[in-house]
């Protein structure tokens, strides 16, 4: 790897802070990886996506990074900041300075899928593991004659509601101690566990086949790293633990676990 010259913004003023970003870059055309430093003066309340945009606008329009909603609801902008998986749209500059106790930050792409360019990884490949976990109702339970939809009480949903908030940002998969080559990953597992806990799903055995396969839950070392890094603060490890014990409360599937 080579290091290129440092690019600096020239602004300064009130509420601005000078930070240095060391970004791992990748050029697919030449299959070349290198580190590039950018020194930027940015607002303390700016998000990291805003900082990356500032780099595009003022220093280097070629730097590629991914995002979509930019408020933590889609999970497209996950990157490593000082080795921690985070959503770039949620990390404010002042929080990053406090959290890492520095104004120097290294930014790298996630390693759960091949890098396409700079900070952009091939999410399509990452998602193939989620698709494998069948993120839908495979076989819905029949309705009672007097129902037009399933009657579900809040207490039925309570146990798994948090897991439905997952946005597939793959921060948990990144932090997981198991390799994504041997384990389908925490988020993909959780996509299936949600449906095992959903009283409307009846195809439990089909789900358990994958979860209890050699790429399934027994690859989980219970490090709880997934819960620790989840930007949505979902206790992912809790759901993996329930599934390991076959405890799918309130569902068709509990006794089959």
């Amino acid at each position, binding site marked *: 790897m080579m290091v290129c010259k440092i690019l600096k913004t020239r602004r300064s003023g009130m509420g601005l802070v000078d930070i240095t970003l060391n970004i791992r870059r990748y050029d697919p055309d030449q299959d070349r990886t290198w580190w590039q430093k950018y020194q930027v003066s940015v607002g303390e309340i700016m998000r990291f996506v*805003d900082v990356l945009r500032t780099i595009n606008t003022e220093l280097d329009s070629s730097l590629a990074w991914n995002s979509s909603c930019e408020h933590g609801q889609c999970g497209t902008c996950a990157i490593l900041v000082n080795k921690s998986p985070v959503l770039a749209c949620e990390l404010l500059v002042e929080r990053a300075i406090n959290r890492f106790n520095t104004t120097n930050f290294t930014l790298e792409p996630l390693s759960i899928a091949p890098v396409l360019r700079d900070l952009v990884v091939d999410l399509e490949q990452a998602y193939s593991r989620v698709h494998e976990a069948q993120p839908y109702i495979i076989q819905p339970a029949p309705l009672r004659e007097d129902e037009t939809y399933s009657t579900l009480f809040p207490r039925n949903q309570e146990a798994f509601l948090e897991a439905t908030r997952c946005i597939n940002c793959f921060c948990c998969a990144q932090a997981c101690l198991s390799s994504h080559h041997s384990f389908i990953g925490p988020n993909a597992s959780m996509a299936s566990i949600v449906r095992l806990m959903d009283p409307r799903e009846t195809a439990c055995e089909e789900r358990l086949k994958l979860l209890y396969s050699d790429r399934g839950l027994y690859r989980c070392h219970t490090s709880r790293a997934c819960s620790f890094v989840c930007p949505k603060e979902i206790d992912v490890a809790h759901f993996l633990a329930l599934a390991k014990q076959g405890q799918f409360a309130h569902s068709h599937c509990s006794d089959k676990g």
Partner: protein
Amino acid sequence: MPGKFSFHDHISCDVLVVGAGGAGLRCVTEILEHRPDTNILVVTKVSHPQKSHTGTAQGGLAAVDPDDPIDSPIYHMFDTWKGSDCTADQNVVQRIVESAWDEILWLERRGMFYTRNEEGKLAKRTFGGHSIRFGEASAFRAVFESDRTGKGILDTMWGEAVKKGVKFYNQHLLTELLFNHGACVGAVLFDHKKGRFISVAAKMCVLSTGGSGQVFRVTTNCRHNTGDGLGVILQHGLPVMDPEAVQFHPTGVVGPGILASEALRGEGGILRNKNLEPYMEKYAPKMKDLAPRDVVSRANELEIREGRGVLNPDHNIEHVWIDLRHLSDYVHDVKLKEISTFFKKFVNIDPKTQLAPVRPSNHYHMGGIPTTLHGEVQDINLNVIPGLYAIGECACASFHGFNRLATNSILELITMGKIVGQTVLTNLKQTLPSNEPASEKGEYTFDKFSRYLNAQGKHNVDRIKSDLRSTMSDKVGVFRDEKGLTSALDTIHELQEAAQNIRLECKSLTMNQELAQRWELDNLLTVSLVIAQSALERRESRGAHTREDYPEREDAFNYHTLAQISPEGNVVFSQRPINMDIFESGADYADKFGYISRKY
């Protein structure tokens, strides 16, 4: 410098769907549920359908429950008509409202996690402009999934698409439509990830490319909502309808403008100014904080303009407050979970104990590609273009007229998605003449991309985009006037010139973000041009289109704007009449559907 481009691949399919948000995927699932062997190609610009903007919709989904003893579809139709400032098409309003509840059930059966009440039934809440008995009292009409209803819809929908074996073409751009004898027969795609051009021959093309909010600096819209569908339609000399009808959400989180749902007010949140006065009663004595969005956005801006705003020191932006402190912990922690975390994460405010800073933020484009009730795209003479359909935010049927009611947008996505799915199914049954694309296909795209990569000059994509977005927010926002609009148009023309001299730093075709954004910039510039020019042309105030120099709604403007771009680059106008089917039906309450005055 790149050599001459060519197609990497030629694909044939029955149906090409461009855009994999709620509308596109509902259309796809409808087709596959009835005709499983249909060869469908689903294309999206984002990395995966789950990253689509539908997923950010928060508050709810309006639909009258047939078991509701108080509510009635006619009230929902009336609210939508009144909310639209009498510019929605009544045939569309009736069709969508009457088919709404079926869609709620469709989603539930496929796994959407609606919030339930203590009886185990779908919980409901109220939103601005939704009433019973023609404005008498608030209607509890919206079902919801916490404050992530859009995510619930999107997750259900892409899950169903995966279940049905749909293969997504992610990170592909629609750069060109292909026509033969006036019929749409396919499209040119650019595979952004691999840097390849693909030609697609399709019996039907469905555009569901989403909104255009990125034309504004402060917006709730995602980074990818760059008006691409409108850009492609305009580049082919086809019209867009009511482009000037742009919604500004009253409560964007101060700074980035992130959406803070109307559900905040539906659950009891109160807007306050710097003196902590609950000022909405001044502007809408009856509905107060639950008046429609155009009314509340203007009120918020007026409070700030008249010196009753609060300055946010971090962003140096003036704002008003939304007071949520009196709401229960359950509401904060469960029903408004996501939004509560936004305030904590982005402005460091705990809405349980502190006032939360908000200001209007661009939110939704009521205007779009003109379509019939069945989603068929129309040309400027209102003739249907065979083989071409549009749904979702990029389309305009028109369900929302000049102001959309809360919770009506995701309702439109799924109902119109289904309707277009049915239209496509019907049309697939007919024996179609073999429509081979004309031989010069792709030349337009190749020429465009070649110009992008070869252009020289001092300009850069982000700087021009940033200037454009600031101009649009400052001069084509909540309040508009002739001076500001004229000046905005001058700036847009200058920026169009400057864009010719953008030198791209990265010359690769492969995963070149700069190249994709250069292409998006052309769409943003074109869409901004028709928005601003149409706003200038409409010398009246109607719904979200507020002209300070023409503050009243005028009967002379009781029509939809059609705007297209001439080969010389000028915006050319025509009109489409507003459909008044309900009013003209003579049925019960038909008299309520005339050009009524709008008080809340």
